[in-house]
């Protein structure tokens, strides 16, 4: 009878926009649900300028510019990026052709391939990473990037970019 009780599904909470489940819905030993970062799936291709107000994982193809000034940006192992990247923390596990501007830290994992320059007060190059370019650890705010707060409507639009598998049509944010 115990397993029957365990299998009894909890009643779903009422529909609420973007809020974690009420604490009493989870067993006390589990931490509260963490908001997941946005992600660009491996089948997605984006050509243009990406901005947002949350962390982002890129596993697809990006050409242009990515700007997440106060957040973390990760180029996953499947990520193929041809763009300049601006974020608080930038982690590269895939391939990037472009410059990295990280206000806090830039990290190259062993699977990383970067052809471009790194500007960040802290740079971590893990052995095995492939890199060719200049490292500048006395970086200031990069020229041409304005520190700005996204408009409220833009924040609401910066949801998940995940695309169902099989869809590979390019997305042009300017459209």
């Amino acid at each position, binding site marked *: 009878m115990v397993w029957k009780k365990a299998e009894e599904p909890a009643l779903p909470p009422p529909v609420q926009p973007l809020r974690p489940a009420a604490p009493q819905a989870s067993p006390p030993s589990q931490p509260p649900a963490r908001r997941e970062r946005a992600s660009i799936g491996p089948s997605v291709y984006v050509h243009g300028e990406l901005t947002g107000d949350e962390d982002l994982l890129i596993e697809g193809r990006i050409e242009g510019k990515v700007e997440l000034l106060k957040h973390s940006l990760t180029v996953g192992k499947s990520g193929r990026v041809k763009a300049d990247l601006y974020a608080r923390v930038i982690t590269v596990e895939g391939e990037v052709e472009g410059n990295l501007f990280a206000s806090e830290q830039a990290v190259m994992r062993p699977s990383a391939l970067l052809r471009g320059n790194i500007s960040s007060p802290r740079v971590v190059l893990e052995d095995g990473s492939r890199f*060719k370019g200049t*490292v500048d650890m006395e970086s200031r705010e990069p020229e041409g990037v304005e520190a700005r707060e996204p408009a409220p409507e833009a924040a609401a639009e910066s949801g998940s970019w995940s695309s169902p598998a099989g869809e590979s049509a390019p997305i042009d944010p300017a459209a």
Partner: protein
Amino acid sequence: MSWLFDRISGARRSAPSEAPLAHPPPREVHGSLALAALWQELPPGGRLEVLDLGPPLGANVEFWGEAGARLHVGDLYGSLFAERDGSENESLAEILDLAEEERFDLVLAWDLFNYLSREEIASLADFLRRVCRPGALVFALVAIGKTIPAEPYVFRFAGPESLDYERRGDGEIAAPRWAPAEVAQAMPGFAVRRTFLLRHGVEEYLFARQG
């Protein structure tokens, strides 16, 4: 650049097959008298611009970052030992991914001279003369023993005056055994500022760009 690929690929052909090593290659830390001298020789003031011809290494990035320098990782070794993909005719500037206007105060050539002929060193020197400011220094290590590893060492800064030598692979090839005068003649446009003969079979050089 095909001459460089021929030279290095020849060295690789003479190395044994790349079976997994039973024991990891040793790493040794050696004091460097040339590094100790280098800090005295560098021009004062301004921000140091460093060109590293070796591979990208976290320890070296961290070292130069703490020194306040701007470091360009050229990874010439990585390009030379990569599979030939038709890029053999790239210029050195293209291989090192250098912008036209970049100029350097210090070049880390490590043990690259051990794997080049005199003509090839002269060709490299011609390139370095163009990208080095007057008075810029080139740091190089030349083996004086009979043999050298089939692949260049990987060098990491273990401190301002010491280097961690990591050997890759266990093949051996004949060393060029350059005499100091030969090395000096192979670097037109550069003068030998200092040399140091170390006990572990290495002669360290500091060249200075003339003009």
